[in-house]
């Protein structure tokens, strides 16, 4: 584990360097924004809308204390979505989707000698392949998470209205109650950290794969597991540092 950690930091030392040709980097960045960000929109829409709806329904169905104001449902949905659901759960889902994709893509490039071809040309393959992915994740994951927050709250609204458990005015009053911009900033900081972890850890396992297609599959699984565990630990550390 310590050896892997050392190799990871050494790798990042090569990744986080100035790109050789900005025009090539820019083209790669646009491609990665599409591959990592835009292609993830459907799953984010689906997950966010339905989980937001379920959070609202569960909160409403468990609120049988008459002393609690009716807008509490909106407030709890807002807090759960901003603080935890959108940044963490969506990142865990993206660790599965994006992480396995990155790991298998780079792993396949390794076993088919495409990375060797880059190295022989004199290209810093780590910088060329991984830096655009890191930038794409760090730029686009926060956008996805903001999108997810909005959709989850809309999902909650729709589910309450359909189920006749609350009115739109009461729910929106709850969403606006004790709304703190700091929580959104906290969520976005977490998301940037999670995006960095997903891309760098998955790239690490893909880049250093040895063997054949079975090993690429194993590396992909490992990348998802390690990214997810690292996200959970980082979540705890950032929460401890920023909220307590």
């Amino acid at each position, binding site marked *: 584990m310590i050896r892997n950690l050392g190799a990871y930091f050494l790798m990042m030392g090569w990744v986080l360097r100035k790109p*050789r*040709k900005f*025009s*090539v980097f820019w083209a790669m960045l646009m*491609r990665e924004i599409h591959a990592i960000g835009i292609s993830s929109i459907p799953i984010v829409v689906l997950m966010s809308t339905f989980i937001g709806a379920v959070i609202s329904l569960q909160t409403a169905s468990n609120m049988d204390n008459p002393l609690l104001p009716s807008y509490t449902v909106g407030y709890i949905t807002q807090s759960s979505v901003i603080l935890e659901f959108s940044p963490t759960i969506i990142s865990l889902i993206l660790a599965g989707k994006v992480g396995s994709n990155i790991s298998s893509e780079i792993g*396949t*490039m390794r076993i*088919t*000698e*495409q990375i*060797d*071809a880059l*190295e*022989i*040309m*004199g*290209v810093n393959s780590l910088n060329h392949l991984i830096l655009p992915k890191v930038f794409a994740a760090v730029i686009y994951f926060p956008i996805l998470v903001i999108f997810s927050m909005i959709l989850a709250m809309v999902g909650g609204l729709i589910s309450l209205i359909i189920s006749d458990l609350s009115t739109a005015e009461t729910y929106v009053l709850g969403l606006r109650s004790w709304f703190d911009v700091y929580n959104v900033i906290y969520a976005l900081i977490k998301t940037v950290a999670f995006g960095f972890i997903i891309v760098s850890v998955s790239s690490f396992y893909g880049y250093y794969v040895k063997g054949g297609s079975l090993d690429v599959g194993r590396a992909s699984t490992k990348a998802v597991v390690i990214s997810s565990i690292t996200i959970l630990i980082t979540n705890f550390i950032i929460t401890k540092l920023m909220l307590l």
Partner: protein
Amino acid sequence: MISVQHVDKTFGKQQVLFDITADFQPGKINLIIGQSGQGKTVLAKSMVGLHEVDQGQILYNGRDFTQMDKRQKTALRQEIGMLFQGAALFDSMTVEENVKFPLRMFTKMTKKEMQDRVDFCLERVNLSGRNALFPSECSGGMQKRVGIARAISMNPKYLFCDEPNSGLDPKTAIVIDSLIKDITYEYGITTIVITHDMNSVIEIGDSILFIHQGKNWWSGDKRDIIETNNPEIESFVYASEFMKKIRASLRENIS
């Protein structure tokens, strides 16, 4: 000229190359032959810096690659083209983008100049008009030809080909051999070809290095390999009855 001097290479506890010394001449096709697992690819990959050698020198026109810093290696690598066994084309790029990639990365050519160079290289390997295809849409032979076009796009002084004929039918293998031969003679490139293909040995082998048990076991040219009685060469090159008959016929022609 590339000169390899007393090169050793070990992986873990297993030594793969033992004191290899050889010269590879410019304007000639220098073959490295030998059985699988004898160290041919390790030697070629060590020569281009994909493996670091334990000791010895690799001299490119007198410049020792093993002593260069990263910047110097990057500069030298722009003089090297390599054709990989599986072509190693970038999946996400079209044929044109693959050939254009080194030009975009390392030159200050205008778009027009780049396009002209790409078209020239593709024409050189008989792939004009195939610019928009992706590697997955190309046959094995086409992929190899795109690999050659990419390798020569930067006008290399040194060309490495790792088993260029593997997986190809005999007719396509001859096309690839002819391309390598034409390009080498036309541009005076130092070409190094790792091969198992005995047809290539006889057809294009200007200079042949036989690696056995990680050592420089035998060297000569295509005439020498017909005449030699070295037992390891005989058991490798002339293993089949068919090859023995061909050798007998070639020997008759020579005498």
